[in-house]
């Protein structure tokens, strides 16, 4: 907003007036004051009184004695808070209409969104490919890290240390730094076999390294969370350490970590936007180029919608899977 358009901008009204004049500010203050004082403050006082009254123990008579006021105050207080919030919100919208209008035109400019969407969506498909590949490798790589980190016995100590070092380093590094190092570093280092790797695969490697460290810890918590008696039962059947992990511990552990796993995957999906820094033309890059050309960030809103849109069905699908699993295994489901 620092360098406003000098010539006739394509959509000058898009900026709106974001600075409020003193009258508006005064009106604001008055409105908030006139609402908070008569509605919200008494409501909150009523709630506090109700709390006090409920705590008062009647020395004689039934436990209900003297509590009617508490019940009434509680009810009134609840209603007051509800009404107050609604009125406050409505007042905010009506007073700040110019501002809201400006927000709508700047961030949610329908023409811009509609116009940029095909391009943005095409570029976003790249993000989808990127995170699908990265999620696939993360699932495998993180499990390997978690299992190696948990290996028992003194002979596996070097492997354990190596995995701890990996997790510590890549969890601590900002994703952007890892992406930069892998993206640019690999071409400078000329590592045999990796020098001609496409930017796409460098992005996948970088994201796998970053999220592998997180997800390895998630796996580990799942594995540690399986009660030791399950291991005892499996080992006493004669199952080896590896078999116990594979057939008994990991299947149970993984079921518990689906929600945090989903969390990390959403993080990964969002961080695919970061690979634009190594020159990959993905959805966000495409959208920001469009925004620059048209001087309106609504195209970035469009890519934002894409990101949100893919996480919501994923979240619902995970909920469904967890639910189905629990119904199957729990009594009376």
């Amino acid at each position: 907003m620092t360098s406003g358009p000098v010539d006739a901008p394509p959509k000058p009204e898009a900026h709106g007036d974001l600075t409020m004049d003193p009258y508006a500010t005064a009106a604001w203050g008055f409105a908030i004051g006139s609402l908070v004082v008569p509605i919200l403050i008494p409501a909150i006082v009523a709630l506090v009184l109700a709390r006090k009254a409920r705590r008062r123990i009647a020395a004689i008579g039934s436990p209900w004695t003297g509590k009617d006021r508490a019940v009434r105050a509680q009810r009134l207080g609840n209603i007051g808070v509800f009404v107050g919030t609604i009125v406050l919100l409505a007042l905010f919208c009506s007073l700040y209409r110019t501002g809201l209008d400006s927000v709508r035109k700047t961030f949610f400019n329908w023409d811009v969104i509609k116009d940029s969407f095909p391009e943005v969506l095409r570029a976003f498909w790249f993000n989808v490919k990127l995170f699908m590949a990265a999620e696939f490798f993360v699932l495998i790589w993180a499990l390997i890290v978690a299992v190696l980190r948990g290996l028992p016995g003194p002979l596996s100590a070097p492997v354990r240390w190596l995995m701890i070092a990996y997790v510590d380093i890549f969890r601590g590094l900002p994703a952007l730094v890892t992406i930069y190092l892998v993206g640019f570093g690999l071409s400078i280092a000329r590592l045999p076999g990796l020098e001609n790797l496409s930017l796409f695969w460098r992005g996948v490697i970088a994201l796998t390294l970053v999220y592998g460290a997180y997800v390895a810890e998630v796996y580990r918590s799942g594995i540690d969370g399986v009660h030791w008696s399950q291991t005892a039962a499996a080992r006493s059947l004669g199952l080896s350490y590896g078999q116990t992990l594979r057939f008994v511990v990991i299947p149970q552990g993984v079921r518990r970590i689906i929600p945090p796993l989903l969390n990390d995957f959403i993080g990964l999906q969002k961080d695919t936007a970061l690979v634009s820094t190594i020159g990959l033309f993905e959805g966000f890059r495409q959208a920001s180029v469009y925004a620059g050309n048209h001087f309106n960030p609504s195209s970035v809103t469009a890519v934002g919608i894409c990101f949100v849109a893919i996480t919501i069905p994923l979240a619902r699908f995970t909920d469904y899977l967890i639910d189905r699993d629990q119904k199957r295994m729990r009594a009376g489901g």
Partner: protein
Amino acid sequence: MGFLEIRSVEKAFGENKVLKGVDLTVNEHEVICLIGASGSGKSTLLRCINGLETIDAGGIVVDGRPVTQDWAELDVLRSFVGIVFQSFNLFPHMTVLENVLLGPRRVLKLSNEDALARAEPLLNRIGLWEKRDEYPDRLSGGQQQRVAIVRALAMQPKLMLLDEVTSALDPELVFEVLDMIRELVAEGMTMLLATHEMSFAKESATRVCFLHQGQILEEGPPEQIFTEPKNPRTAEFLKRVIAAGRM
């Protein structure tokens, strides 16, 4: 030499000495009941026999071979020494049938058909073949414990260790599990049981051992232990059991 030889076994958890020199011989087809108060070391002793706990001193020999901490050896040992726990410990993510098939298929490397051929008659015998596709949490405690016993039996063990297998059950479910164990006794299974079921010990045990603070204070045929215990502590323990209406 007996099938199972336990020689001056000692075991401590930190400062707490749980086993203070236990000696016991179990011959084939014997049924030995370990009785004693909670914390007397019964469970720990059973867990030491199949290597779930390491012993600090002494030695345990099963079928002529000392129990070591070598993993490969332990895996072999456990494939013919079955253990059943107080808390069943069925695998909750597997159906009844999958629970029973796991050991035969993965440890004994039987084909699916051969493993099924073992599982079916066993599950039929406890009347739970119809429930083979249910998950353990949907079964009653008694049913779960019988499945746990079947899971151990599917490995065709030479020795069964039963660790208070009825203690977590509602009273009306105890009998179905005890009936099953009685059948095993009749078939001549070698068994070592930690139990609070005195009437079961009285009728089924070849020998009864009274454990007190990590030592076997008295050992003998059930008729003798239950009617004329030689050790005053045994007598005291039995008196309390009778007072609690458990015999």
